[in-house]
C-alpha cells in the first residue's frame, strides 16, 4: 500500500491514519501498532521541519512477523544522529526539544534504516515486530533419525519441532533470536523472505534442518544445519547444503553465507570464511558463490589489510585492494549506526549506515551503553564497497574489535564482520 503526501504538519493525521488502518487490516493488535504510528507521527513532523512542502511517499508492508513503513523523500534527511541508540535529546534547549520527536520515533520501533536509493531520493524504514507467546511443548529428541527425506514445505508442526530443537540443543549465540518462539518462526517462514529445508524420517521425526533468509542484498543468509544428532550427520549436512545450492543456483543471488553450529566438511560445497568462538559454542561460517565472479575493487583501512588479504586469497577472490587514505573529506557527515540487539545471547549488531568524522566518539558511546546493559559480544560490519567506512576501521580495532568473518558481496562490496567480546564480570 502506498500514499503520497505533501510535507505539511496539517497532513500528519492522514499519514498516521494510513499506517494505522493498514496495520489493522494486516491483523496487528493495537498494542503492536501503536508504537509504530507514534514513530510515523514523529518522523513525519521531523521531515516537515526539514523539508517543508516536499512530497513524501509512504509505503506500508505487511511482513506478517512485522509491520514495515517506508518513507521516501527527495532530499538528504535531517540530522539523523538522534537515531543512534545512545543519543539522549537535551530537554533544556529548543533544539533539543525539537529533536525529541525523532528520538521517540527511533526508540518506539524495533528496527530502522536510512539509505540513499539508486532510483533517486532517500528512504527511512521503520519496522515494528509482532509479539509472540513462548513455545508450547518442550522439545523431545526423536529416537529414529534415518533414513530421512528433505522438504522445503514442511508442515507447521515440523517447523515447531525445529524451533524447539534449536532452542533446546544450541547456544543462544548459535542462532538468530528470531527463530524462537515457534510462532515467530512460522510467521517468518510464511513471508517470502524466509525459507526452510527440513529432513524428516518416514515417521515424521525431525533429523535436522536449515533456515535461510534473503533481503534486498545479493546474498542469501543461511543458518544451520541444526541437527538432532550432530555426531553422525555428515551426509545430512551435505544433502541439505546441496539442496540450498539447487534452490538458489539459478536466482538473482550472487552467493550464500552459512552460519553453522558445527564445522562444515568441504563436500558441503561451502568455503570456510571465518568463525566466531563464544564460551557457549562456535559459529562456523561458510560461503558459497553461486555465480562466476569477475573480481571487484575493495577499499580497506591499512589495519585490516592482513585479515582481508588472508581470507580473500584463501577464498581465491580476485580483488583490486585499495588502501584508504584519509584526505580529510567530510564523508557521510555524521555517524549513524543501525543496531540489532539479541538479549538472550548477549549479542549486539552495529551496522554503520553513515560514517563521519565523529565515528570514534559515536562508537565509544555505543560501546559504553552496550557494556552497561550487559552485552558481551558486539559485532560491527565494514563494507569494502564504501571507501569511507574505512575511517571506522581504526576506531574498531582500537576499541578491541577483531575481524573474524568475511562475507564476499555481503554489502555493496565484501562485508567484514568484526567482533568485540568481553568476558562477563
Amino acid at each position, binding site marked *: 500500500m502506498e500514499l503520497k503526501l505533501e510535507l505539511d504538519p496539517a497532513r500528519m493525521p492522514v499519514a498516521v491514519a494510513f499506517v494505522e488502518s493498514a496495520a489493522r487490516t494486516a491483523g496487528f493488535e493495537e498494542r503492536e501498532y501503536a508504537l509504530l504510528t507514534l514513530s510515523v507521527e514523529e518522523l513525519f513532523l521531523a521531515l516537515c521541519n526539514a523539508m517543508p512542502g516536499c512530497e513524501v511517499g509512504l509505503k506500508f508492508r505487511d511482513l506478517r512477523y512485522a509491520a514495515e513503513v517506508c518513507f521516501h523523500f527527495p532530499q538528504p534527511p535531517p540530522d539523523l544522529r538522534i537515531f543512534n541508540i545512545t543519543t539522549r535529546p537535551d530537554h533544556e534547549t529548543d533544539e533539543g526539544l525539537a529533536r525529541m520527536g525523532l528520538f521517540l520515533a527511533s526508540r518506539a520501533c524495533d528496527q530502522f534504516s536510512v539509505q540513499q536509493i539508486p*532510483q*533517486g531520493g532517500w528512504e527511512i524504514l521503520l519496522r515494528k515486530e509482532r509479539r509472540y507467546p513462548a513455545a508450547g511443548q518442550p522439545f523431545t529428541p526423536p529416537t529414529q533419525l534415518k533414513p530421512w527425506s528433505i522438504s522445503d514445505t514442511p508442515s507447521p508442526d515440523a517447523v515447531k519441532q525445529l524451533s524447539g530443537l534449536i532452542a533446546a540443543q544450541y547456544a543462544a549465540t548459535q542462532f538468530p533470536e528470531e527463530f524462537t518462539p515457534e510462532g515467530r518462526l512460522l510467521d517468518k517462514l510464511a513471508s517470502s523472505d524466509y525459507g526452510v529445508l527440513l529432513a524428516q524420517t518416514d515417521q515424521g521425526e525431525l533429523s535436522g534442518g536449515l533456515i535461510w533468509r534473503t533481503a534486498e542484498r545479493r546474498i542469501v543468509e543461511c543458518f544451520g544445519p541444526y541437527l538432532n544428532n550432530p555426531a553422525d550427520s555428515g551426509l545430512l549436512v551435505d544433502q541439505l547444503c*546441496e539442496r540450498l*545450492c*539447487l534452490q538458489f*543456483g*539459478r*536466482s*538473482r543471488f550472487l552467493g550464500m553465507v552459512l552460519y553453522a553450529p558445527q*564445522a562444515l*566438511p*568441504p*563436500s558441503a*560445497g*561451502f*568455503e*570456510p570464511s*571465518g*568463525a566466531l*568462538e563464544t564460551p557457549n559454542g*562456535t559459529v*562456523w561460517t561458510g560461503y*558459497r*558463490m*553461486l*555465480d*562466476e*565472479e*569477475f*573480481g571487484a575493487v575493495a577499499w580497506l583501512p591499512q589495519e585490516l589489510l592482513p585479515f582481508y588479504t588472508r581470507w580473500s586469497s*584463501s*577464498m*581465491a*577472490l*580476485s580483488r*583490486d585492494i585499495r588502501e584508504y587514505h584519509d584526505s580529510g573529506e567530510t564523508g557521510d557527515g555524521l555517524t549513524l549506526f543501525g543496531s540489532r540487539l539479541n538479549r538472550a545471547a548477549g549479542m549486539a549488531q552495529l551496522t554503520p549506515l553513515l560514517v563521519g568524522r565523529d565515528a570514534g566518539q559515536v562508537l565509544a558511546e555505543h560501546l559504553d551503553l552496550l557494556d552497561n546493559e550487559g552485552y558481551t559480544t558486539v559485532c560491527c560490519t565494514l563494507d569494502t564497497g564504501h571507501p569511507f567506512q574505512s575511517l571506522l576501521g581504526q576506531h574498531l580495532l582500537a576499541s578491541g574489535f577483531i575481524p573474524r568473518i568475511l562475507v564476499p558481496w555481503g554489502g555493496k562490496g565484501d562485508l567484514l564482520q568484526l567482533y568485540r567480546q568481553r568476558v562477563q564480570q
Partner: protein
Amino acid sequence: MNLPPLDLLVPQHVRQFEAYVPSPPDSELRKMFGVERLVRMNNNENPFGPPPAAAAFLKSFDPASVARYPSGDCQPLRIRLSDYLGIKVSQLLFGNGANEVISFVIKAFCQQGDNIVTADRTFAVYEWIARFSGVGVKLAPLDDFGFDDEGLLGLVDSRTKLVFICNPNNPTGSWWNRERLTRFLDRLGPNHIVVLDEAYFEFMDQPDYPDGISLLPQYPNLIIFRTFSKMFGLAGLRIGYLAGSEAVVDIVRKTAIVYSVNSIAQEAALAALDDLEFIRATRAMVQEGQQMLAEQCAALKLPILSSDCNFAMIKLPFSDTLAYRLLMQQGFMIRTMTGFRFPGWIRVSMVKRDEMRLFCDALARLVHSRTDQSMLAKTYGVSAS
C-alpha cells in the same frame, strides 16, 4: 532528476527477471585474475577458429561494402544451404545466432497464459526468453542426465505451445536416438510445436543420432535449430538458423527481425559451409580432448560425462564456483554449473592438445590442493573440536 514511474511502466514478468551478466572482456579478466594468458573453455567455441575458406574471406573483406545493408533474409545463404540440406529455401530462417531464433519462435507462438515445456537442466535461454516474455515455463527433471520423455509428456497441457528438446543436451551431452525421438513425437501428437535444438549436430558421430531435418516431411510440427557458432567457429559473428515445414516457418518469419544478420556473417557462413576436412579435424581434436580429460578424471576419481560434443561435465568434490576462481588464477576459464542446477559440476570445452594437457595438470593441482582435509581447521584458524 525525475525518473519515469517504472513501477507502473514495467510488466511484472520483466521486473522479476534478473538480467544476464556476460563476462567482461578478456583483457580485464586477465588483469583481475593476474594472468598473462587466458584459455577459454567456457563457451564451447572452436579453438581452431573458422574454417580456412571463411578465414580467407574475412581477411580479404572489403570494408567499403559495410555501407550497404545485408541481404534482409539471407537469400544467397539460404539458397546454398537449402541445396546442401535438401530442403526448400522457404523452409529456412536465419537469425543473429540461434539465440535470436529462439526468441522469434517464442514470439510467434506464445502469448500470456501459454507455456513452454523443457528440461530443468538444459540450455537456459529457452527458459529465460519465455520468462521475460511473460510465458509460463514447465520444467521436467532430467532422468539420469538425459531428457525424460515421460516427464516432458506429463507436463504438456492445452496451453503448451512449444516443447524444447536439446539434442544433444548442453550441458550433459546426452541425446535421443532416432527411435526415441520419433516415439516421443508420435506420442505427443501434432498439436504442439517441438523445437529440436541441434546446436552441436556437426559434432555427432553416432549412427543412430537423428538428423532432425530428415524428419520434417513426417513431422511438420517440428522446428530444428542449428548454429554457425560451434563447429564452424563463427560465434563472434552471430549467425544461426532454423528449419521447419513451410507453413510453420512462414509463421515464424512474421516475428523475425529483418536485416538482423550482418553481411560479413552471411558471407563467412557461405564460405564455411562445406569444409568437410575442417569438420574432420575438429572432431579429431574433440575426441582427443575428451579422452585426455576422461583419463585425468579417472586418475583423480572425478565423475565425468563425456560425449561426441565439444564439452564435458565434471563433478568436483567442492564448490564449482571456487574451482572457477582458482582455475582462472591459473589461466583457464571454465563454466560453473550451479546456474544450470548442477551444483559442484563444471563444464569444460575441448581445446587443442597442448592446452588440454596444461588444463589437466591444473585440474589435478586444484583437486589435490582442495581435498586436503587438514586445510579446513587451518583456514578457519580456530580449533575444530
